[in-house]
């Protein structure tokens, strides 16, 4: 499971760039963001039938799938406009194609650390010889949800995606 493409911008650099660009906040911490991770396991239902259960994930084996759920909430007194949530993906996680979800959100993907965005079909990567090829889900480095409306005071919602541990 090797990746033959050029090194991408890391999460820390991306976050630092966002924070450096933001002037001191007037209404600090209006939006709250919570991140949780789950996995599906086999369990028994009330009548002993086999069911799938979603439980918090702490330890995972390579090859297993995890579900990230991000909950946003406007804890302030003013509406929040132009809300954009981004999640940089750890290098060991492989994005599960078409798994990103979010009601009222436009979803974009990036393969270059968040410099450029688009649907998977529009993205390309360079291999180790410098040749360009269409991007695959396993090349995704960042996921972005752009909420279509403002989030009113007290408003909240969830976005999510799945990834497989390489």
């Amino acid at each position, binding site marked *: 499971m090797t990746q033959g493409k050029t090194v991408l911008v890391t999460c820390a650099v991306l976050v630092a760039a966002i924070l450096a660009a933001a002037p001191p906040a007037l209404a600090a*911490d209006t939006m709250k963001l919570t991140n949780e991770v789950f996995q599906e396991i086999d369990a028994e239902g009330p009548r002993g039938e086999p069911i799938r259960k979603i439980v918090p994930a702490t*330890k995972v*084996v390579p090859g297993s799938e995890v579900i990230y759920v991000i909950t946003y909430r406007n804890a302030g007194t003013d509406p929040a406009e132009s809300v954009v949530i981004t999640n940089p993906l750890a290098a060991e996680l492989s994005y599960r194609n078409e798994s990103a979800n979010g009601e009222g959100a436009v979803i974009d993907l990036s393969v270059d650390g968040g410099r450029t965005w688009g649907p998977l079909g529009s993205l390309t990567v360079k291999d180790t010889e410098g040749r360009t090829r269409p991007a695959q889900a396993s090349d995704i480095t960042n996921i972005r949800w752009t909420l279509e409306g403002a989030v009113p005071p007290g408003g909240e919602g969830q976005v999510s995606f799945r990834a497989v541990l390489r």
Partner: protein
Amino acid sequence: MQFRIPTVLLVCLCATGAVRAAGTPATTEIRNSAVVTYLDPGGTPQTALSNETSLLVDEILGVTIVSNDAAYVAVTSPDDDVPLRFTITNVGNGTESFALTADPAPGGDDYDPTDTRIYLDLNGNGVFEPGTDPLHVAGVNDPTLAADASRVIFLSNDTPAALAAGNVGLVRLDVAAVTGSGAPGTSFALQGDGGTDAVVGATTASGAAQGGYVVSDIVTGLIKSQVVADQYGGSNPLPGATITYTLTLSVTGTGSIDNTLIADAVPAGTTYAAGSLRLDGSPLTDIADLDAGRFTGAGIEVDLGTVSAPASRTIVFQVFIN
């Protein structure tokens, strides 16, 4: 005729980046956090970070075992300490020790090899060197392999007397991860690397392979060794130093082999030492004439014709390091 020629096995560990064939290394911590940007009513951009979640990568237990012998190994009846070769590979994502068990009576054959011993090719040269290669003692020196690493295992056996040519004796070698094995998904809590759980992967963390011997009338072997002597009385491989190669042909059992030609190329970076070719101590001329040997320009050739068992022939030649 079959030659028992020692071969050097090349093991390619093709790992690029942090992820290898068996997946993300055990004990890796996967961190995730999200960022939200928005505009406040004044149009000022704001940012908030989520908490960070952390996942710990558990250890997968996995092993494969293969026989390295392409065909049954020829033996005489009786015969002693003839090795079968196997390779075990840790296909999990953490470091693991592997238990080895040999069974010289797996059935489906004509005889049971005896005096079964397992040796570990710890120096990794693929050559059966009992003694230098330690004898395996269960629970004491079970081989420990990092993720993706392999180890050659020698299984040495004797063949009893009074067997007929063509009789086959099979030996089975079983391997299993010491931490545990069984149905895929079985978890051994906290017993993986660094306090992770060890989880059995698709291979069941166990496996078996079989090798075999076939009693042959005649068995031949060719062994090559080298000695380096430099111009200053030492043994350093310096330009100008001399390498003396010794090729020993052994023919055991009964019968003879015909058209026996021993050839060896002069290695790149060296020059043949004219007049150095010897057969059983006697000089052979470099030119093609009535004696058995010649220098072809690229290497030496010695034509031994028909060799009857039992026999041992020693060929020596020298090169200078350029």
